[in-house]
């Protein structure tokens, strides 16, 4: 049974190896991946191409069998069909029956989840309006663009009102407006109390929407936690930008400092200590420079991501 403490998604020490070709060459898709998603949160599943995101998602949905590891959805083992009507899934690059209209397709999926015909038709119309396809819903999917198919995929995942959504790269291939729409949709799902796990490598989307993230690389978890904690934990520094100095003075100042560079007639330097930053700035101002910026430097998710990948590689 599911208790209130039970995570919606649990993956512990998951590993999966594929054997490719006649010579059965091993391909280590997942070596050691762990993550947990709590009820009501938006979880960003991050990793570069080939990190193992899709593999993990497929194992969670019972589409592939894990070699090792403990996986569960809504407190149920994956082999237990009890979670099925309550989880919505969208695969990466979805394609569907192109002889159906968008409305027929979403209705069909709602009915597969056990909704009766009349309610399913109503629900499909509402969902397609919600993803911005009210104009196209009665056209055959054959004539849909990539972005429209992506939106249809989301509507399909939402059919039957699941409480957990697992979306594999829902924003890939969309234009900026499409991405914003999907972000807003994901936020509105959270507002309705739904839980969302989505994979991506677009960091700005994650920064805008996610409560927690899990970063994986080469089949292994390298970092998981609350986004604000991850961003807060990293050493905050101070950034100083000074302009108005001659090229020689700039070069000399830059040479004295380890983390400094000259860009467009300005010097930009990073310090971990506030006092050192201040010393540097006042020194240059005394020499005739103009202080353009003096501010705490917050790490970005991108910086953390890049460093996690560089340092967190799985060692055999």
């Amino acid at each position, binding site marked *: 049974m599911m208790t209130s403490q039970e995570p919606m998604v649990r993956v512990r020490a998951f590993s999966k190896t*594929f054997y490719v070709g006649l010579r059965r060459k091993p391909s280590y898709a997942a070596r050691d991946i762990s993550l947990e998603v709590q009820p009501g949160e938006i979880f960003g599943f991050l990793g570069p191409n080939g990190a193992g995101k899709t593999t993990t998602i*497929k194992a969670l*949905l*019972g*589409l*592939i*069998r894990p070699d090792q590891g403990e996986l569960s959805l809504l407190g149920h083992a994956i082999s237990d*069909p009890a979670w*099925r*009507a309550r*989880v*919505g*899934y*969208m*695969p990466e*690059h*979805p*394609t*569907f*029956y192109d*002889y*159906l209209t968008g409305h027929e397709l979403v209705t*069909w*999926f709602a*009915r*597969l*989840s*056990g909704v009766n*015909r009349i309610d399913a038709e109503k629900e499909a119309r509402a969902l397609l309006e919600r993803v911005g396809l009210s104009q196209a819903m009665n056209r055959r999917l054959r004539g849909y663009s990539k972005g429209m198919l992506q939106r249809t995929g989301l509507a*399909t*995942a939402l059919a*039957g009102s699941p409480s957990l959504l697992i979306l594999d790269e829902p924003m890939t291939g969309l234009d900026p407006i499409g991405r914003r729409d999907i972000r807003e949709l994901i936020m509105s799902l959270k507002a309705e109390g739904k839980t969302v796990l989505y994979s991506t490598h677009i960091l700005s989307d994650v920064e805008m929407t996610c409560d927690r993230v899990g970063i994986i690389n080469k089949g292994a978890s390298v970092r998981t936690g609350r986004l604000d904690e991850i961003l807060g934990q990293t050493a905050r520094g101070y950034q100083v930008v000074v302009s108005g100095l001659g090229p020689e003075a700039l070069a000399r100042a830059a040479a004295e400092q380890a983390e400094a560079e000259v860009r467009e007639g300005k010097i930009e330097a990073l310090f971990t200590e506030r006092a050192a930053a201040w010393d540097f700035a006042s020194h240059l101002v005394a020499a005739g420079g103009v202080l353009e910026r003096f501010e705490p430097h917050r790490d970005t998710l991108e910086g953390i991501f890049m460093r996690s990948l560089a340092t967190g590689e799985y060692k055999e």
Partner: protein
Amino acid sequence: MNATLLIATNTLRQTIRQRLYLNIGVFGVGMILLSMVVGQITFGYPDRVVRSLGLSGCTLAVDLLALLTAVSLIYEEIDKKTLFVVLTRPVDRWQYVAGRYLGLLLAVALALVGFAVVFLITLRLAGGTLTSSDLVALLAILPEAAILGGFGLVLSAFSTPTLSTGIGLGFWMAAATTDDLVGLTANADLPLKLVAKAAYYVLPSFARLDFRDAAVYQASVAPAEVGYSLAYGMLYAVGLVALASVILTRREMV
């Protein structure tokens, strides 16, 4: 509605909206009409010619439709990842396979009804009248197509449509000649004889489902024989569907 039926009706809709369905429909009707033309230009018995050529045309068209549709039934859905989404819904894999197959069977039966109507009109025009042996011959096409469709379905659970079509055509030819196999190899070496014997027991026999000669010569067919043939064909098909389910259940969706 239950998941199997939902999948079946969707498969029916998908199949009849495909170009292949129309193409084979045109082909089958063309074969039947051709039988009338040939019946007119040959000497004597135009209704016999219509029965012989027309029923063969019907059989060929329906069998082709069943095999060619079946080979992509599961493969295509894995390829497009539609199946991934379907299987995360409250649908068991065997329900999915059964639904796909049932939909195929409905589409094939619908085509057969269409061909039968064209055949009967043609027969009328050629001066023949409908008899029970005509109906038996038409009905017996269904179990044959059901076996070919089931075999195509098994293949589509693990191989590409092109390869499956090749294997399926081989299976078809073998099934059409199983009864001759044992006779043909009577004087052959022992290993070959054993292979022929094994094939005889494993492969279905389409000769046993062929009542066309009885129709052409208007011989009567014992109801028990018809019933036996139908039951045999359907049982064989059910076995194939079960096999396809087992394959899909064990298979990973990569």
